[in-house]
């Protein structure tokens, strides 16, 4: 489980994360919502180690990871997708997913056997392609594919390392309703030994998949509760949902 204790981050005088605490037990789907600039992506960057917090602690399965490098955290089971597609655009879909499969199979240091001869990596690659629904485009270069499919690869890469905690940063941003439906279905189908933290603007999706919701505003936790509590909260309705939900 992932536990965040009183996390703070400031850039000079600007405090972008203010006393944020979260508890994400195994198997939970935890959504983080809030208006633009509420500090959602900053929080993700603090969790993955791309940014260093000014204060506070991040604990993954009883291990304090606050000061570990991003790659160490990833190897410990904290994986993320990016808000903007962050792929290997010059390579094929298979080569993209194989990169994550190499981590999963712990073969990165293998310099004596050809990649093509390692069946476990090929199997993992195809397994993930099936899960995220891109098996039919495996041999295509990523840059030739539609935005929606690239978005699926983005999620596939984060998933392929078999993380304990999956952080999804707006997985459906820029997608058509049909495409986001596919992603939503994918998220609900994910195995329950995996905890998912998701930043999302699509409220329909949030209320559909989340077990728990944290509402951020100006870097602070405005509310932390079940979807019902958030839906019925006056303060959330005012500051974020604008009363237009029902």
């Amino acid at each position, binding site marked *: 489980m992932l536990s965040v204790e009183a996390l703070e981050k400031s850039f000079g005088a600007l405090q972008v994360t203010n006393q944020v605490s979260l508890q994400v037990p195994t198997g939970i789907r935890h959504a983080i919502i809030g208006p633009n600039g509420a500090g959602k992506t900053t929080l993700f960057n603090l969790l993955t180690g*791309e940014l260093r917090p000014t204060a506070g602690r991040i604990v993954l399965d009883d291990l304090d990871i606050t000061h570990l490098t991003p*790659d160490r955290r990833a190897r410990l089971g904290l994986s993320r997708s990016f808000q903007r597609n*962050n792929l290997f655009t010059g390579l094929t879909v298979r080569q993209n997913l194989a990169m994550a499969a190499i*981590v999963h199979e712990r*073969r990165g240091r293998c310099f004596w056997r050809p*990649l093509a001869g390692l069946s476990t990596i090929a199997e993992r690659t195809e397994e993930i392609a099936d899960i995220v629904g891109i098996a039919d485009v495996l041999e295509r270069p990523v840059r030739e594919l539609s935005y929606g499919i690239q978005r699926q690869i983005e999620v596939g890469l984060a998933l392929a390392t078999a993380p304990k905690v999956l952080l999804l940063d707006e997985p459906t941003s820029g997608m058509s309703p049909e495409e986001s439906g596919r992603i939503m279905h994918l998220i609900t189908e994910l195995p329950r030994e995996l905890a998912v933290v998701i930043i999302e603007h699509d409220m329909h999706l949030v209320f559909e998949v989340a077990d728990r919701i944290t509402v951020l505003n100006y870097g602070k936790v405005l509310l932390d509760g079940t979807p019902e509590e958030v839906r019925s909260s006056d303060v959330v309705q005012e500051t974020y949902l604008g009363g237009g939900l029902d």
Partner: protein
Amino acid sequence: MMTSERLRQLITFVTFAALVGYWSTTGYFGYELIAEIAVFAILAMSLDLVAGYTGLVSLGHGALFGFGAYMFGLFTVKLGIAPATGMAAAIVATTICALLVAMVVVRVHGIFFIMITLAIGEMGYEFFFKYRYLGGDDGLVGLPRLDLSGIGVNLSDPSVFALAMIVVTLCVFLVLAYLLRTPYGRVLTGIHENPQRMRALGFPIRAYRISAFALSGAIAGLAGTLTAQHTQFITPQLLHWTTSGEVLVMIILGGLGSLVGPIIGAAIVTLLRHELSSYTDYWGFWLGVFLIIVVVSRKDGIVGWLDYLRQLVAERRRPETAEEA
């Protein structure tokens, strides 16, 4: 349809066939030229491993090359060690040197990486320029060649030496081509393409960059020991940044990140330097023009051009399949 990979295999075959063909028909001058091409081809492949595949554009590879040559000189001429042992020791010493350099330089990126490798290279140049024990600016003479008479190979014969150099170049090519097909090689490519994503996936990218730089240093060191055996006379000029720059020109011209491109680039630059300079004093000017055309066309050098031609031909052959997505 011919794939990109098939085309590269064909280019590689033609390149080595041309080298061997040239070797079989030429005389003394040609043998010298082939040995020089081979030395630079190996050095250029070593730079391609870091610049073309891992994304670390080093301007200090001339210094590693020269360091290897000087270590070979130190071990054989000064310490009297047998050439074979001296060669192995020189390669190990250069690898260690590259490893230490890498630990410092991989901390910075982009233009800073280029500048810091340049600065460290110049430190090396200055050191050997001043260091009298190894000849200083006069250089070092009397370097031996490997003694392979035990297996019936006489390396003091220029013809045999040139052929041996082609064989070594082929071996280096095959080893690197194999390495790049392994998971480790694929990780290097990934780090070049998108280091941020690789780190997010869990790869310790700094460790990979350091290891690639050290490996590249080992090959640059090998090239150094070979040039020392070829000319049997070395000067600090080998370490100078102009050597590094010239090797960079070779790989850009031939095709960055293609492994065979650097060999072609090394052959072209070396031939131009010797052949064109007998027709015109402005050979550097024409090389510059050539380089500008290559860079502006954005086709990744000669290998990139050939691949572009392959695609054109492929499209013309089957115009009806233009839309299949």
